[in-house]
């Protein structure tokens, strides 16, 4: 690592999976996109880690080495969606719709496993935010995109913490309504 590196075209080149693919290769290749996919739905590290572990523990039992690389990607994301649906069912009992049929998140990783799988959700979030009144949007951005506390959000907006809380609740209610069946 002594001399400076020249930019190398190698970095863009992706190694194929071994043939037949073994689980360790599959893990190295897909742990990142699977984690990102799950994180984009649950929005916190703890759940994303638990669910990612579950996906690969299941995969370890069920990996069929006769599959092609593309079909492994597709299958892994199917496992991930099932694990996610179970998660919602288990902890969110009141019949929240399960995004099992979300074909947008299913399609991308199958062909392009390295693509940021949260892209489609990012677009949905953009749409939802764009449909909100300015103050609602600001509260949600500060709280959930920037991670501000209620007190910090209130200070940034020049309102009282109580007020920030009320706006936050209304904004989340509106956001939930706007994201409709996709949530």
């Amino acid at each position, binding site marked *: *690592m*002594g001399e*400076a*590196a*020249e*930019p*190398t*075209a*190698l*970095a*863009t080149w992706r*190694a194929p999976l*071994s043939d037949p693919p*073994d689980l*360790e*290769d599959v893990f*190295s290749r897909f742990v*990142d996109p699977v*984690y*990102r996919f799950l*994180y*984009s*739905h*649950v*929005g916190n*590290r*703890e*759940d994303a*880690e638990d669910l*990612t572990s579950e996906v*690969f*523990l299941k995969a370890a039992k069920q990996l069929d080495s006769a599959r092609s690389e593309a079909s492994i990607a597709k299958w892994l994301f199917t496992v991930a969606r099932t694990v996610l649906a179970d*998660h*919602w069912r288990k*902890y*969110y*009992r*009141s*019949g*929240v719709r399960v995004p099992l049929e979300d074909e947008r998140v299913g399609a991308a990783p199958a062909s392009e496993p*390295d693509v*940021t799988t*949260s892209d489609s959700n*990012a677009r949905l*979030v953009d749409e939802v935010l764009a449909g909100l009144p300015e103050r609602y949007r600001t509260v*949600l*951005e500060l*709280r*959930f*995109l920037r*991670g501000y*506390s*209620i007190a910090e959000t209130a200070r940034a907006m020049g309102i009282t913490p109580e007020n920030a809380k*009320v706006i*936050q*609740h209304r904004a*989340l*209610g509106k956001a939930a309504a706007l*994201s409709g069946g996709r*949530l």
Partner: protein
Amino acid sequence: MSDHEQLDRALDELIAGRSPRAQAEGLDSEEQRMLRAAQLLRGSRGEEPDDEFIESLHARLFPTPTKVSRRTAFLGALGGLAAGILGGVGLQRWVASEKPAYPHTALVGKNGRWVAVADLAALPHGTVKAFKAGHIQGFLFNRHGQIRGLSRICTHMGCRLDFEEKEQAFVCPCHGAEFAMSGRLRYGPRGYPLPLPPLPPVETRTRDGKIEVWTV
């Protein structure tokens, strides 16, 4: 309007990076939908798995310790192959680096020089330091003893990024783009139709207790 006390606790857990599931169970269905909207918002930031998590899951899945992991052996073999093609230029670095999602290129080509910018002792694990050296501005940080350098210039319109400790992210004051510590785009700028390229890495090395960067 009810005061949503339990929902508030769930939201605080979420923002702290912890699971809100314990609180979620006690919420009514409208509140659960609100919580899930918050989770979706939070999730849209995009986040990379922690190195430590990957290592521990790997150890759980492949419990027999092998001297050379298959991945290393595989990359090693690949290295040998590529060395033949490229004459070994930059190879070690590529093999050692994280898998790039985009065509990463070093910020400065071969006509640079090494410039000392910080004391190694002043950059313990988890800290971030901004530097200016020659024509480049960047961030240095230490992750588990590994020193890394990244450009400090936003890949959107060229503003100088700030480090936001709470989010462990590099944030652009101009249009709000946010980059993860790996340099990868995490969020925004809102309304911009294309994902921004990652922050280019800055080459670093340590000499006599000093961190040096490759610059022009």
